[in-house]
């Protein structure tokens, strides 16, 4: 009895210690973002950030890039994941191998390959749209895993046969039968991709494009409290997206994008 009480307090102390390690930086960030010099605390840092046109500019750019990445990767993955689950389970290994490859070729390596391979045309590599190529590759494993989980929960064989015996073609089947059934997985994948793109720093920084994460870093080098406010805003958005994924996507979040 005594031993178990001892191990229980030890366990409790350990959990509390780690909770401190994980929550103190967040609290410190919050307090710092409210600091206005001396002993004054107010929301002036937030006001300053919201008035900065660069904030809106970079955020809009990252949001647009995220939207493009989401549309492209969904358009690529939904049919592929559907077909692999229904008819071509042999391709599962190929796709697994490719997702392993995306681990072996991390963003900092991939960006080197992309720049050496694509030197032109200017409208492609010279604009931030070039980032979408990297972001699609970066988010594909997560999109695929999330949608695959959603599709596996369905009885695809029965759904397909039922739809087709009623005269539905492949288009109708995908759009009106499969898609509504995996809407929560699609939403989860979209949220996860949004969070990855919004936080992505490596590609944009190496290629010298001014995205939201690059802007946060720039503010961080020059101004203290607005940077803290900005980090909290960015964190808030990311965490909402991630919690949304856990809530709707029912998928597990694993290795993310922004390391």
């Amino acid at each position, binding site marked *: 009895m005594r031993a178990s009480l001892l191990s229980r307090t030890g366990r409790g102390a350990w959990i509390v210690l780690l909770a401190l390690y994980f929550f103190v930086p967040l609290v410190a960030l919050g307090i710092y973002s409210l600091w206005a010099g001396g002993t004054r605390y107010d929301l002036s840092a937030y006001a300053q950030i919201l008035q900065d046109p660069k904030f809106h500019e970079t955020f809009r750019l990252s949001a647009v890039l995220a939207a493009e990445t989401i549309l492209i990767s969904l358009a690529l993955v939904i049919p592929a994941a559907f077909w692999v689950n229904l008819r071509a389970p042999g391709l599962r290994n190929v796709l697994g191998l490719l997702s392993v490859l995306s681990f072996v070729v991390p*963003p900092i390596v991939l960006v080197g390959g992309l720049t050496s391979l694509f030197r032109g045309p200017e409208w492609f590599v010279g604009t931030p749209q070039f980032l979408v190529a990297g972001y699609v590759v970066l988010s594909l494993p997560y999109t695929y895993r999330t949608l695959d989980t959603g599709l596996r929960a369905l009885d695809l064989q029965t759904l397909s046969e039922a739809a087709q015996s009623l005269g539905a073609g492949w288009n109708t089947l995908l759009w009106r039968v499969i898609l509504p059934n995996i809407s929560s997985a699609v939403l989860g994948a979209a949220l996860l991709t949004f969070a990855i793109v919004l936080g992505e720093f490596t590609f944009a920084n190496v290629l010298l494009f001014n995205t939201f994460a690059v802007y946060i870093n720039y503010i961080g080098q020059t101004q203290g409290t607005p940077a803290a406010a900005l980090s909290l805003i960015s964190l808030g958005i990311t*965490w909402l997206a991630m919690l949304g994924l856990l809530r709707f996507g029912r998928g597990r979040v694993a290795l993310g994008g922004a390391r």
Partner: protein
Amino acid sequence: MESPSDVQVTAETVSPLIASSEGLIPGSGLTQQAEGRRAARRERLGDLLRTALFVGPLLIVLLVFLVIPALAVVIGAFRAEGVAGAAGGFTLEHLRALGQPQYLTGLKNSVLLSGSTALLGTLIGGLLAYAVLGEGGPAWLRNPLIAFSGVAANFAGVPLALAFVATLGTTGMVTRLLSGVGINLYQHGFSLFTFSGLVVVYTYFQVPLMVILIAPALDGLRREWREAAENLGASAAQFWRMVGLPILAPALLASLVLLFGNAFSAYATAYALTSGALPLLPLQIGAVLSGNVISDPHLGQALALLVMVVMTVTMLVYSGLERLGSRWRR
């Protein structure tokens, strides 16, 4: 919308068995058999076409934007600088350049940073997962821990760096609290912006990743094994030494290796904290690629190749261990 021929093809698709077994019905003629075979062949062709249509675009995008760029890195690392846009011949010059002291330091720092944070992450994350998810842990904390780990493992990069600046920077909250009680961290050799600081910050995303990775293996540790050991008179320590840890060992090692790779390829957090000044392999690649120091794409590719080799070894060891560990999981 559907042309009649479309519907016909799909009807056969639905029931390939019926289509192909038609010829086997007793009394049916040879023509019917041939008909069935032709239908089956048409069916296979249609399936192949649809595979190309549904999976093809994904594979092409991955080929063009992942596989070929990776090959370009490998080849570029061995290519001499070409003249007037033409590709140069093959050379080992760039690989030899990796032997320069600053790159050896970069590799050493990267390995040390990834190794130490992988060890810390495995140890702390493993014990945290056991404390909460193990037998007798607080049940109400299970789901919050899994959810939080999923989020925190992704909390990296610039915001994480700034959070730690507010905490452990020269004027950070904890730094000031500690100096208030007479402990000056920065006089004791700690600095957030050097190696020691990066270890503390990297651990922040390594621990939750470890929790996610080890949770299934902990769940697989069956209660009956513990009860069996107890019935045979084993103490808790004996159970862990002779049953628990040997079963968990492959999963623990596999997670350790994956955490290593996770830290080894990280770029954003280190860049934001050190402005790229600390010699770490990913930061050096970034500097060479964006032309901050010298613009030498081939050297950048040689460095990138080094990262790829390390990540490949990491992945091979990981999958080997993972296969070993999954034996105990059903």
